[in-house]
């Protein structure tokens, strides 16, 4: 395998693993974020505080906990996920769910309260009014997804501890950068880092550009 094709393979794996992780995090985090953002309930500040705090979770600590769970002797060892891309997906998804929840909640809370009243006074019922608030939050929700993806694709600890950086199986951009730099292949490490940055930028810019389209589609 040539160096170029290896870089392409690692890049595609990174995109798949972190894209999948961000997708799962969106599936779990978006409803939680919407719920916390829209509903008033007892213990809400505590829930928000916990998710906010978990945004700063050290990746190696999460990697270690999941390693213990997924190891042969661990309670989830029977799943045989350790050292597979799926372990990294699970780990990264858990890592970024708090980002998804926190940004979504914050976005919804910051929508002008009059939007809900506007929908109600024009004849919408409660669920219609909530839908109107969500439509206004779409920019923030897309930001939450792109931030989640960016965090996932740029993290190292979870990928290294759960994936093991196995060539052709679990090697992704961040683990490859760490390995090449440790081996003294600094130039290759820099090249991979540039690829990582370009991928992140392209994905984020694309999402921002898609926002207008999504908004238009939501109003159909």
């Amino acid at each position, binding site marked *: 395998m040539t160096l170029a094709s290896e870089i392409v393979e690692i890049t595609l794996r990174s995109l798949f693993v972190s894209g999948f992780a961000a997708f799962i995090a969106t599936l779990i985090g978006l409803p939680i974020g919407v719920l916390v953002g829209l509903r008033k309930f007892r213990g809400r500040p505590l829930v928000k505080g916990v998710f906010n705090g978990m945004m700063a979770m050290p990746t190696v600590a999460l990697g270690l906990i999941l390693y213990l769970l997924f190891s042969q002797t661990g309670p989830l060892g029977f799943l045989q996920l350790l050292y597979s891309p799926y372990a990294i997906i699970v780990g990264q998804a858990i890592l970024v769910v708090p980002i998804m929840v926190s940004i979504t909640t914050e976005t919804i809370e910051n929508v002008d309260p009059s939007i809900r*009243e*506007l*929908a109600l*006074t*024009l*004849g919408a*019922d409660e669920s219609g009014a909530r839908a109107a608030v969500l439509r*206004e939050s779409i920019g923030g929700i897309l930001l939450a997804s792109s931030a989640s993806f960016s965090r996932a694709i740029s993290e190292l600890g979870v990928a290294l501890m759960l994936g093991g950086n196995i060539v052709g199986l679990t090697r992704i951009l961040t683990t490859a950068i760490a390995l090449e730099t440790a081996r003294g292949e600094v130039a290759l490490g820099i090249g991979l880092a540039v690829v990582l940055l370009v991928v992140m930028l392209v994905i984020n810019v694309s999402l921002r550009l898609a926002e207008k389209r999504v908004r238009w589609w939501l109003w159909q």
Partner: protein
Amino acid sequence: MAIIELVDLRAGYDGQLALKGVNLEIDQGEILSLIGPNGAGKTTLLKTIGGLISPSSGSLVFRDTDITDTNREILRENATLVFQNPVHFGTTVYKNVAYGLRIRGVDESDVDKRVKETLELLGLSGFESRNARKLSGGEQRRVSLARAVAIDSSILLLDEPGADLDLESKRIVEETLRSLSKDRGTTVVMATHDMFQAKTLASRIATVQDGQIERIGRASTVFRLELESRIGDHPVLNRFRAQAVWIESDWTKGGHLRLRLEGGLTLEATGHRDGDVTIIIPPEDIIISRQAVLSSARNSLKGSVINIEASNSSVLLTVDVGIELVAQITEDSLKRLKIEKGDEVFVTFKASSVTVY
């Protein structure tokens, strides 16, 4: 016939009562102005009538049915609130105006027809595909009103409809409200700080003070009573000290007053007073003319214009007639009479326009 009736109604936010026992009957098709200082409860009253705030006690009757606890949705279907600060969905003018119709399941071809008709009514034709949030302040307010007008609500609730409006937008908004009330029988309730608008547009005025209706009645009656104090933050113009002499006469049953002001100026008023008094002459009751007019009004004075100031919806003209009298006229009248600073004009007002206390 009353469309809405509030009986000892209390309501507020987060346990804080903003309405403290409101009793109010609003007639079908009338235009009712709510005036009062900031924080008096005008917006809360509008939101309660609009079904956006639940009353904590008292009763709320809509078309003879008590809906206090049962079905406030009926209010949201029949009453539409136009907010003080224009708020729009983040989309085009067309989709904003179509929103209420689509919510009601109106057929798409009818939606199109009604949106276009409404936009034309409010001078917004051609704005369909513009982003509602990127229009000028006046245009945004007209979009807010268009959204409410399109759904043809029985009750239109307006929070400060004249605030920060350019004269053209104000004229369009006021004409639309008049025509809705007259032609469609729409009931209009508006909170306003604009006394001129309240007086010229509304059939009745209610003053709101500390969560209660203080006075309600025909505009002229309420204004006369209110002029004895300050309303909100609005200073009373044309207040002077005078010496009153009561004169028995035939032209009013109770006689009339001759008022001698500082500088020897004499005015006539109605009432029964003697000695030191304070008088107020409402600026909107003063007629400005280029020549002396033969009229039934007892007070006609000549003076020179010393100041011209644009007000919210009109023009304030200060005329030196021995005292400095402020008259409120429309911009159109100012242009028509071609009045400029330094010009000589006549001010005319009825004896009954002078409040003496």
